[in-house]
């Protein structure tokens, strides 16, 4: 059933402080809307539980990409198009730029935001594997102040995050330490441009003396939340990339992947694809 817009309220306070004050005043009452590419779909389909919305799309305080010597900080209101236009992201965080280019059509990338992508917390979302691989931190803001959390601790369960009802995601912080690392990212979906992933994998590694010195592997659609694949990482760290290492990584991946069966794919298919992607990543390191 199509919903009636007259049943919904939305306000757009002028500043970030005004929005935070509103959220603090009655936590959980207002749902923030950034680009609306999730919420407007839900609203249109009559699936939106809340009747009260607060627009944060106009807040300049949340739409920025700033750099200093050690960090790149990306405001939560940064759109995927902004991410793709950023020279520093293209140069140093290519996996994120690549993921942004997958996030629906151009029109969708012009509206959809990084903050909305991680708070919506779909297990299949495109930006989380890249953010996990780069060991991003997330900054959450409320009238109580700012707190910083490793991004890998942000997703708690299916569509559940560490965000408190009076908080907004302020920004995502990426450490600029990946010069010399080799990156890999691939999404397997029904078609490239704007299909929800069946499986996506991001890998990042640093080799030293022919061995894997450091490695990060993260995946979407393999569990109920986007995850780092720690067992698979453990299977390759310190090793040379040999047939045995690849085999060990495949086995570890198949074991730690606990994919969901849904209308898009079977769990078995997803685990098999994840194994193939890990192998492709490791061969890239040779």
């Amino acid at each position: 059933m199509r919903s009636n817009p007259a049943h919904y309220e939305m306000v757009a306070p002028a500043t970030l402080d005004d929005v935070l004050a509103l959220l603090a005043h009655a936590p959980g009452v207002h749902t923030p809307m950034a680009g609306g590419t999730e919420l407007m779909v839900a609203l249109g389909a009559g699936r939106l539980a809340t009747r009260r919305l607060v627009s944060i799309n106009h807040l300049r305080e949340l739409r920025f990409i700033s750099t200093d010597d050690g960090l790149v900080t990306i405001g939560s209101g940064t759109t995927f198009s902004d991410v793709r236009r950023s020279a520093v992201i293209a140069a140093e965080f290519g996996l994120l730029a690549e993921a942004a280019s997958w996030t629906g059509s151009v029109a969708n990338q012009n509206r959809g935001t990084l903050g909305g992508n991680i708070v919506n917390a779909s297990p299949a979302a495109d930006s989380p594997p890249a953010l996990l691989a780069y060991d991003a931190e997330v900054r959450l803001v409320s009238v109580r102040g700012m707190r910083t959390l490793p991004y890998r601790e942000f997703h708690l369960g299916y569509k559940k995050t560490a965000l408190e009802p009076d908080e907004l995601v302020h920004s995502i912080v990426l450490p600029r330490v990946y010069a010399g690392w080799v990156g890999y990212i691939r999404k397997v979906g029904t078609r490239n441009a704007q299909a929800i992933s069946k499986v996506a994998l991001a890998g990042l590694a640093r080799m030293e003396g022919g061995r894997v010195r450091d490695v990060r592997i993260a995946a979407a659609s393999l569990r109920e939340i986007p995850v780092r694949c720690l067992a698979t990482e453990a299977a390759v760290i310190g090793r040379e990339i040999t047939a045995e290492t690849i085999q060990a990584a495949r086995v570890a991946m198949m074991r730690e992947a606990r994919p969901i069966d849904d209308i898009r794919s079977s769990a078995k298919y997803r685990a098999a694809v994840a194994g193939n992607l890990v192998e492709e990543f490791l061969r890239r390191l040779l």
Partner: protein
Amino acid sequence: MAGLAAVRFRVNGVERTVEAPPVKRLLDVLREDLQLTGTKEGCGEGECGSCAVLMNGELVNSCLVPVLQAEGAVVCTIEGVSVDGRLAPVQQCFLEEGGAQCGICTPGMILATHHLLEKYPQPTLLQIQEGLAGNLCRCTGYMRIFEAVRQASERGRD
């Protein structure tokens, strides 16, 4: 019943104010409140691009924009593309190349093409395909559309 919001924005060069529920879709405001029915509804969920308009120079799907978020914006719809009542080059190329059949996807295609040519005046086929990937067409099979875009880019060069 929640209240109405007064929203002010510029559409095709004209300052407009509408009173509407704040989450009313920009698509419906354009079609119902402003009688600009060139913008079409296909899917209503961001998948098809037939409702695409330019908002502050960026291509957006108006079915996913609550009108309150258009406050202060500059919006261009298909009605604003022609120049002095004459078809713009992009429109002319769609016409000549058979890039439009039933016409439902066409307004969105034209605006997506505008946005594309703004970014890449001489797009490669791959850039054309990516730029229009969010615009679905059930009639043409896309080849004539790609050709129309290519023609439009050549004319832009003259």
